[in-house]
């Protein structure tokens, strides 16, 4: 309420009663959304370029096949060019929208090979158009070379587990949630690493080796399982915990969790930052199999379960509760199996 001066009331920017009192939060406390977005790597940007190139060429071939045909020495093949255009648009759309870009880059390579084959068989006998056909051949050849290079780069990075990897095989996770416990209580709960598997769904178990090192076993929805040793690097009670996987681990993983007092002294804001890189070698498991397709969503659910666990002592669920008759397909899923109550009744009846 304007004009009502209450020293206990939490302040915010633009508050008419606190003009001059408001202090911007220190840089390390700024919300993650204020930080600049992660810069897209060369591979990601070149993938984008190839995607837009595909869409551009595809639209041209689809909408003006005769003009395109004249330009490349295939004036009579409108239908064929339309088909090629549609294929190019599909490649481009896949490249721009899908997280895993590798198959789409290779689809461009296959498309280029098809184009080369078509160009070679262009039947036009006239000289000017023949020259154009040769020119088109050269251009398609060059584009094919670029596509092959991009695909190889992409595939090689997937097996190396190198730096930033196009195609969603590296996961950056940033999530925050407000919890109705003090930062000290949240810190204490998190620091006892044995609690983590209770709310981090993909984490199967943690074995504590010593004060700083622990062994993490992760099991993903795809049935894949990965283990690594993790070391706590920063341990500030009531404020921050940071950890990373040890050198030579199959998965490069680093994370940090920050516990900040919430405004008005009511609770704690927990900010979770995690970063995964996939295992080395072609035999390694894909990150998508481990994390599912949405690492940020998984982390958000993990934080919600942490909130439920630390505030109430249990994680609410409908599993184990009663249900009506399941379909035969439903009976195959974990949720569909007879509820505990049903099993108890069956045991009593028999």
């Amino acid at each position: 309420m304007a004009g009502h001066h209450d020293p206990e009331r939490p302040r915010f920017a633009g508050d008419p009663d606190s003009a001059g009192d408001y202090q911007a939060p220190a840089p390390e406390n700024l919300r993650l959304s204020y930080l600049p977005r992660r810069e897209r790597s060369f591979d990601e940007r070149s993938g984008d370029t190839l995607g837009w190139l595909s869409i551009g060429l595809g639209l041209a071939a689809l909408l003006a096949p005769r003009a395109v045909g004249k330009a490349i020495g295939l004036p009579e093949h409108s239908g064929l060019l339309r088909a090629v255009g549609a294929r190019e648009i599909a490649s481009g759309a896949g490249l721009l929208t899908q997280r895993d870009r590798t198959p789409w880059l290779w689809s461009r390579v296959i498309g280029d090979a098809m184009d080369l084959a078509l160009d070679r068989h262009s039947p036009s006998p006239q000289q000017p158009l023949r020259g154009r056909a040769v020119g088109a051949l050269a251009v398609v050849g060059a584009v094919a070379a670029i596509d092959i290079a991009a695909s190889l780069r992409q595939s090689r990075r997937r097996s190396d587990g190198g730096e930033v990897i196009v195609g969603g095989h590296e996961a950056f996770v940033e999530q925050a949630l407000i919890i109705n416990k003090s930062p000290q209580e949240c810190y204490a709960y998190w620091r006892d690493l044995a609690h983590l598997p209770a709310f981090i769904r993909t984490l199967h178990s943690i074995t504590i080796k010593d004060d700083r090192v622990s062994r993490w076993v992760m099991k993903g929805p795809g049935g894949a399982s990965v283990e690594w040793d993790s070391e706590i690097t920063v341990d500030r009670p009531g404020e921050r915990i940071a950890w990373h996987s040890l050198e030579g681990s199959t998965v490069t993983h680093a994370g940090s969790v920050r516990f900040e007092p919430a405004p008005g002294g009511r609770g704690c804001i927990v900010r979770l930052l995690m970063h995964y890189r996939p295992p080395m070698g072609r035999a390694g498991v894909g990150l998508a199999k481990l994390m599912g397709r949405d690492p940020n969503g998984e982390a958000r659910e993990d934080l919600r379960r942490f909130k439920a666990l630390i505030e109430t002592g249990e994680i609410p669920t409908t599993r184990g509760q009663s249900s009506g008759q399941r379909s035969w397909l439903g009976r195959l899923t974990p949720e569909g199996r007879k509820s505990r109550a049903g099993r108890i009744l069956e045991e009593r009846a028999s």
Partner: protein
Amino acid sequence: MRANCWNGITDLRIEEVPDPRILNPRDVVIRISSTAICGSDLHLYDGFIPTMMKGDILGP
């Protein structure tokens, strides 16, 4: 007990289901006199929630 069960899109039936049991120390079992669905259940009723399974109990 009888319960309001989802059996498919726009297919709700009152069925005989196992009685609920106390699963956690803080659970409560409540006897209700009547049941229905509310506006928010219409999304489940009309089939917009893909994780619905035949046999799920709606309401309390």
